[in-house]
């Protein structure tokens, strides 16, 4: 399984998380859905779909939290028969990122994912460049940015 990162500081924390949590698929993206790193995906189209859906779910839960007048939810877990999906935000020096983690119930568990996710968040916070301003992607540039990210993630 391959791990790729658009920004190098993400790579090591992500590799460590995947190994320790036993994650099957991982996406790290901006709240807008711009992918910064991935593990386990073999097709760009799957990354695009997962990023769009993950970002949309985060936006929805953030809005629910806002309407309930409370801070954004810490994480969201959906568990199926064989797989679980864990979605949570990570504060970094490059702004808030969103992590989408898919894990096999045979190989991992929500407890393990949560445990090592906390470490991932701390590692990303420590590794992220502190002095840079988070890059804002305009709607007009989104497709080109997405295409560039996918090219990097899939080595094109």
């Amino acid at each position, binding site marked *: 399984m391959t791990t790729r990162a658009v920004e190098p500081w993400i790579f090591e924390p992500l590799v460590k998380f995947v190994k320790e949590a*036993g994650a099957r698929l991982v996406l790290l993206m901006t709240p807008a859905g711009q992918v910064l790193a991935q593990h386990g995906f073999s097709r760009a189209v799957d990354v695009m779909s997962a990023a769009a859906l993950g970002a949309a779910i985060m936006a929805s839960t953030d809005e629910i939290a806002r309407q309930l007048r409370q801070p954004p939810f810490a994480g969201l877990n959906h*568990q199926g028969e064989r797989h679980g999906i864990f979605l949570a935000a990570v504060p970094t020096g490059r702004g808030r990122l969103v992590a989408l983690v898919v894990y096999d*119930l045979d190989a*991992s*568990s*929500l*407890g*393990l994912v*949560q*445990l090592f996710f906390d470490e991932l968040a701390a590692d990303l916070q420590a590794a992220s460049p502190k002095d840079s301003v988070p890059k804002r992607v305009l709607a007009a540039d989104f497709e080109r940015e997405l295409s560039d990210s996918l090219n990097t993630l899939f080595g094109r």
Partner: protein
Amino acid sequence: MTTAPAGFGRVLDLVTRVRGVRGAMLVAGDDGLVVAEQLMEGIKGPAVAALAASLASRLRRALEAAGVGAGQFWHLQAEQGALLVVTAASGVLVVAVAEPDVNVGLVRLELLRAAEAVG
């Protein structure tokens, strides 16, 4: 020491009253989350729960592969302590964290009683 909800608190008391036990937990076997805990300061409950459940799952598969049936009790002895676990019928794990020189037989007995009470 952290406290557990009343009903579970009595179950965990069975284990923590044994001399040398530093904490006890009920852990959801499927997802490795803490159901209830009574732990001394310094023991990382969520980490112990997640890793113990992961280990229990792998041990269960190893025992099944070996054709020896379901595991009932396991005991990991370390330099500075021990981890003792019994699986209840519902799949909940009853976990004890103990001193290295704890009376293992007594802890095992109380873990089995606690597992029976949990169901």
